[in-house]
């Protein structure tokens, strides 16, 4: 429980009896059923569960891509239900870094431009805020600067995921959200990515990661298991 001791401040994320219901013609689908969960600063959490269990819904809610049907969800002390679409966007841009299974880099932009993009969204004048894209790319383990002008599809899967991690880090967010970050990588490359994420966690980032791979989940300090929209097991 060493992570708990480092966080004396407010909880980063707090779910209070949060439900998410998707209305469908065949009947409502309850994706999350009165979930309560607290995430403190600096934690590394693996969310696990079978497909359809609601773990992606949980991640979407934390990522401010969706809002709860009922219950209260606080992120960085703000109730997401009270935020406008633009305010949710700002929250995503400034405090959350996304890392996807499919890497999801912008094919039209070069490696460096992909990393710069969130920075440009946040700061109209690039020098004014955020981190230096080159340094973040190096920190993410992409040392070869010759690759920086390439398009993402010219890189290997592992390299692309490192670019995606650099992009997630460039605005210096509090929280990294990872959806199956190693799902499209071979085991050795996956391990490299997990070691990078662990290092980011040690340097202070809170990480929430969805995975169904037990080996990957072991990198996390807390495991949460979801079944049928309810938390069945929480090691924290």
């Amino acid at each position, binding site marked *: 429980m060493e992570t708990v001791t480092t966080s004396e401040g407010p909880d980063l994320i707090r779910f209070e009896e949060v439900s998410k219901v998707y209305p469908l013609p065949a009947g409502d689908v309850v994706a999350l059923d009165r979930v309560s969960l607290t995430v403190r600063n600096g934690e590394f959490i693996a969310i696990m569960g079978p497909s359809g269990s609601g773990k992606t819904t949980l991640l*979407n809610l934390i*990522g401010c*891509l*969706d809002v709860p049907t009922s219950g209260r969800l606080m992120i960085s002390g703000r109730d997401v239900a009270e935020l406008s*679409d*633009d305010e949710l*966007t*700002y929250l*995503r*841009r*400034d405090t959350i870094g*996304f890392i*996807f299974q499919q890497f*999801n*880099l*912008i*094919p*039209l*932009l070069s490696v460096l*431009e992909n990393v*710069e*993009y*969130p920075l*440009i*969204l*946040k700061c*109209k004048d690039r020098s004014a805020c955020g981190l230096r894209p080159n340094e973040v790319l190096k920190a993410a383990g992409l040392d070869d600067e010759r690759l920086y002008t390439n398009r993402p599809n010219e890189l290997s899967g592992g390299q692309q995921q490192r670019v995606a991690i650099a*992009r*997630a880090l460039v*605005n210096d967010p509090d929280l990294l959200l990872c959806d199956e970050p190693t799902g499209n990588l071979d085991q050795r490359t996956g391990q490299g990515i997990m070691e990078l994420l662990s290092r980011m966690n040690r340097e202070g980032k809170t990480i929430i990661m969805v995975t169904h791979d037990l080996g990957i989940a072991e990198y996390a300090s807390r495991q949460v298991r979801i079944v049928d929209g309810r938390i069945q097991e929480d090691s924290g």
Partner: protein
Amino acid sequence: MSRTFFDIARRNLQRNLFRSLLAVVGIVIGVLAISSLGILGNSLTLSVTEQLSTVGDSLTVIPHTGTGAQFGGGMTQEKITERQVQDLRRIAAPDPVIPLYSTADRIDVGSQRGVVSIYALDPDDLQYLVEADQGILLRGNSGVLAGSQVADQFDLKVGSQVWFGDGSTERVVGILKERGLGFDIQPDLALIVPIRWYEDREDPEGYDQVIIKVGNLERVEAIQDGIDERFNRRETVLDSYSSTEILSSIETVFAQISTFTTAIGGISLVVAGISILNVMMMSVTERTREIGILRSIGTLRSEIRQMFIYEALMLGLIGSVLGGLLSFGAGYLISLLVLQTTQYLFHPSSLSSIALGMGFGIVTALLSGLYPAWKASNLNPIEALRHE
């Protein structure tokens, strides 16, 4: 920041180069159609009004020939009396009032014979209507002036002898400068004889026409009102036409033709707009996932909209500039083919047709981009991310 969106928009157009080019070609054709038809309409209007407007401003007064006259009805007359001319002089003063006879006669010149229009005018009034190219204007009670086209036709020179239908003869004292089409008289196509010479021979009942040269344009209406007040209170006796009135109605007709041809050009622009809409909707569908990524990492709805509007604007701008440049060529060709002259191509109103076409091109592209941009910005980021 907008530079990045601009770059993304530009690169997306380059990624689908062929499709983008087709959309641009649509705009080019639309702009080309509007501009070159506009240039044609303008050149047409300019060339006609230029031919017509050389006279300056004049009021033409002629007897009202209503249907009543043909059935011998009432007061309707076919000539203008000396008393009416005196009244007209009072109404128009100090502007000159020029009564004239207009007729036609057979003439013989050397071995050539033909029929020409003849105007009989007071030599003192000639200065208001015509200029001599060779020789002099009429003096006294003899001699004849030849209009430029009549002179060409009968090979007349100063001193040539003209035989009239009744066997009398006069010498040409002057050849007139070409004056072009007019609303009052057509001297190019006529001979002009002294008024007293004509009255002595024909003893006419009254004048056929009176021309009032109005010095100050603002007085045209007042004089017309005066004529109506004096002559036409109970029934119309004299009709008066002002050249500006006729000119402006001709200009109206040509402006309508111009608008019509521009509207035809506009149809092709609508088609271009639809093709841009189509291209952009395809782009939105294909890029759904990309839009989801951009939204998830913190791009605002308004910024997504901006990106797509840039795309539409770029298509419109490139198409309009190309179309504008090509319209010079097209306008040149059309003017040459239809009007046999290209002198009006660089006239401000022709250039404004090109500006109009380009403006419409850009606006059309922008309008066509609005819906796709709105559609893209309103995609649900979660569903967009799931899109394959």
